């Protein structure tokens, strides 16, 4: 089966397990959203998939291959990653940043982009509507614009697996919808998309599959309509909420009520 | 400064008169930009650097010295006996506390930097403690000293003689050194010389206004770097090679001996081609004699002898 299969994954630092016994499956052609409160281990799990953190137990399989054992250079030809708040001290134009996505396919010696790569980079810029920004310096852009550039960079990598850590966090609502539409298109074109996110309603609207994490463990997995329940929100997030269904669809909509503890962080008056 | 030297010379001249000369205390004089007052002939003296120690010993003041520090080399044979039992406070510059521990009433420093806060102590601070401090005039930096001459060296001898009320001894020493110096005939062949003090990568050489210039002048040697208005400078080897001097004056010290310098000059691909190196024409001077003091005149006499022994048959 094509897609990413995670089995019994553990990431241990010292005697602390950041992720334990994580297991879930994402399919090619689907958008999978990784949700859970802060500190649940979402970013650590993504880092482990990238090979930045060693798996202390478990296996990761992608398209039938042992993904965790792939050398960095091979993995990068399959998989792209968009991180949170990516900043750089370097002096790079938007085009330069997007062109970084071609690095896995370039030889050590070349100083110029091959013509094919130029076309791919232009396509990625276009996909994120960045053509007018191509020659702007990356560090002069707003957070939202930078996020779009990072997504374009990931697209330039032409990945079969796309990992994203809260890719919509800096975007205004229109940009969020456009970005998620794009990811959905990619998925429909055969890409496996796994993204960590906080906005449950957007996750419910765009993801085909939800993976819910809590203190390093996967506690639920499945289609949004099945996974997002009032009980789960209380268990995982400690939040009282009402789940409705969007009119004319099966997409669940979360209406938040109050935090479980009932306390307020700051009292006024 | 100049006034002090003139005063010194006058005192020396006075002392030469057979009548008993005596210092009237308190004695006030200006030394290296600072007025110092000596209430009585100092009885507890700390001497920093060889030049200071040797000056005091030459005037028969060994019994006044309570401690010495930062000696640049062994005492010359003529002073070895007198200085045998001196108390060495430190091999380097002794710290303020060590010096004050000897309860001195006078500190005589060969370099002005000996009186830095992290060395013996600032001069005004010492003054407040009732300790007079004296910097060898030729080593003064606060007030730029005039181009050093033997009259300047004799002036320092006379001034120390006045401070310690030993004018007759000072006058006798000056008279003897004048006579010895007068007997040296400067070389008249128009020889050029480089005074190589230390350094390997960049040679530290004698320039135009301190002891090196004075000594080379007395020997009749033209100093290659004599036009630079400074005591010593870091020169570059190309300037030395370009000048191709007839003679090298090598300063001999424990940390950079004349033998080491000869080896370096002979092994370096450029300096080994210099005439003075090819024909091994070197004059050697011990480091303590290479700074203004009582050993300059004996050094001139000795180097004149060395110069006579050199062969210039193959000279250009």
């Amino acid at each position: 089966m094509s897609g990413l299969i995670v089995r019994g994954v553990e990431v241990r630092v010292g005697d602390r397990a950041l992720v334990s016994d994580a297991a879930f499956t994402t399919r090619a052609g689907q958008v999978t959203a990784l949700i859970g409160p802060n500190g649940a281990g979402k970013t650590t799990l993504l880092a482990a998939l990238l090979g930045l953190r060693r798996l202390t137990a478990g296996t990761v399989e992608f398209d039938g291959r042992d993904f965790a054992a792939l050398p960095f250079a091979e993995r990068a030809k399959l998989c792209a990653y968009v991180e949170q708040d990516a900043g750089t001290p370097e002096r790079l134009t938007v085009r330069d940043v997007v062109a970084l996505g071609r690095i896995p396919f370039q030889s050590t010696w070349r100083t110029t982009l091959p013509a094919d790569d130029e076309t791919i980079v232009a396509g990625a810029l276009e996909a994120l509507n960045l053509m007018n920004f191509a020659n702007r310096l990356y560090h002069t852009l707003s957070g939202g614009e930078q996020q779009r550039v990072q997504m374009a960079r990931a697209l330039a990598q032409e990945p079969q697996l796309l990992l994203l850590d809260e890719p919509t966090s800096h975007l205004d609502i229109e940009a969020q919808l456009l970005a998620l539409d794009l990811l959905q298109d990619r998925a429909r074109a055969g890409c496996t998309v796994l993204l960590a996110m906080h906005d449950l309603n957007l996750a419910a609207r765009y993801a085909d599959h939800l993976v819910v994490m809590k203190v390093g463990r996967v506690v639920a997995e499945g289609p949004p309509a099945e996974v997002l329940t009032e009980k789960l929100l209380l268990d995982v997030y400690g939040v009282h909420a009402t789940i409705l269904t969007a009119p004319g669809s099966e997409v669940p909509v979360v209406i938040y009520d109050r935090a479980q503890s009932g306390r307020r962080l700051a009292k006024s008056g | 400064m100049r006034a002090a030297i003139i005063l010194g010379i006058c005192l020396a001249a006075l002392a030469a008169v057979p009548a008993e000369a005596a210092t009237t205390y308190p004695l006030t004089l200006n030394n290296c930009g600072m007025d110092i007052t000596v209430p009585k002939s100092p009885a507890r003296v700390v001497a920093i650097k060889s030049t200071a120690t040797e000056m005091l010993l030459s005037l028969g003041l060994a019994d006044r010295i309570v401690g010495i520090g930062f000696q640049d080399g062994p005492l010359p044979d003529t002073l070895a006996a007198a200085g045998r039992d001196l108390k060495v406070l430190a091999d380097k510059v002794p710290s303020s506390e060590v010096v004050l521990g000897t309860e001195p009433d006078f500190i005589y420093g060969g370099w002005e930097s000996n009186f830095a806060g992290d060395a013996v102590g600032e001069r005004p601070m010492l003054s407040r403690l009732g300790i007079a401090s004296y910097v060898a005039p030729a080593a003064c930096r606060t007030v730029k000293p005039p181009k050093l001459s033997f009259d300047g060296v004799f002036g320092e001898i006379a001034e120390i003689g006045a401070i310690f009320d030993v004018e007759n001894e000072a006058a006798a020493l000056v008279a003897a050194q004048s006579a010895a110096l007068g007997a040296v005939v400067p070389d008249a062949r128009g020889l050029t010389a480089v005074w190589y003090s230390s350094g390997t990568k960049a040679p530290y050489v004698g320039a135009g206004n301190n002891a090196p210039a004075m000594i080379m002048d007395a020997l009749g040697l033209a100093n290659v770097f004599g036009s630079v208005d400074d005591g010593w400078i870091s020169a570059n080897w190309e300037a030395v090679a370009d000048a191709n001097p007839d003679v090298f004056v090598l300063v001999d010290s424990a940390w950079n001996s004349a033998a080491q310098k000869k080896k370096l000059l002979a092994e370096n691909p450029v300096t080994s081609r210099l005439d003075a190196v090819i024909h091994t024409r070197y004059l050697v001077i011990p480091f303590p004699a290479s700074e203004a003091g009582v050993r300059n005149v004996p050094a001139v006499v000795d180097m004149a002898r060395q110069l006579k022994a050199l062969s210039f048959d193959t000279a250009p």
Partner: protein
Amino acid sequence: MSWPARTIAYLALWALLLASVTIAVTLGPAGISAGDAWGTIFHHLGLRADPPLSPLRDAIVWELRLPRVVAALGVGAGLALAGTVMQVMTRNPLADPYLLGLSSGAALGAVIFLLMGAALLMPLGAFLGSLGALALALLVAALLGGATPSRAILAGICIAALASAATSLLIFWSATGDSYREILNWLLGSLSGTVWSDAALVVVALIVCAPVILLSGRGLDAFAFGEASAASLGIDVARLRWTLLAATALLTGVMVAVGGAIGFVGLVVPHAVRLAVGSRHRVLLPASMLVGAIFMLWSDTVARSLFDPRELPVGIVTALVGAPAFLLILLRYRRIT
């Protein structure tokens, strides 16, 4: 930059380098004409039968000026490369071998070997010193919780201060008479007295390290957004980091052993070049190397001939030019973080 513009820029830099060498070998206290200076060099290269100058003047050109010119070019290129790498690896634009304590560590190692009487092994001491300083800085940064840009710099400043203090202590302890003078001059950075063996050492260090660094351009580009991003672009981050840091430590060690702690070259040159050609390292690295070489050659030429017959430590020249230049660059950037 598009490729024709880049090719033209490279050719211009090479031309400037050659012109600089041509002029530098004719400058010096000894009045030797440009024709005679080049005649001498051609003679030694076997391109001319008879030497145009006397053996002594021949030696002035071939044994004093040329090794120094070669060493200056190499030291400048090496420091610029090391600076560029440090800036990327620590993701801090203020990083250079000087600020990260590598130079101070190298100086300490060199002084220890020098005072032990092993002057010939000074380069080894300098290399061990710079490697030690680097390891210590990374260790401190790790203890602080990971090598982030600011932690690396803080650790580096701490190591630099420690190494400088240890160096001063050693000099204070052991220097006699005026022997400290030369050590201090060398600590300020000086290429005076450079002989062919020094120049050869610099060239060999560059031949060993420069290809490693130049061929890491792709990896350094990928580092623009940090480790995670580099890893996702196919870079084995740990291996790249160690390879480059070892190359940098070796380069810095050799450069310090030959030229002392010459500051600002590793800091200013990469920034100036980055302003001109951008941050793509496959372009930035070779350009920085060339500009570093040219800058260092002129600094040293000024140091040895401006105050003839005195020698000025070249570190003073690079600081006098480098500090204001750095300020200008900061104003152009208007942001440091």
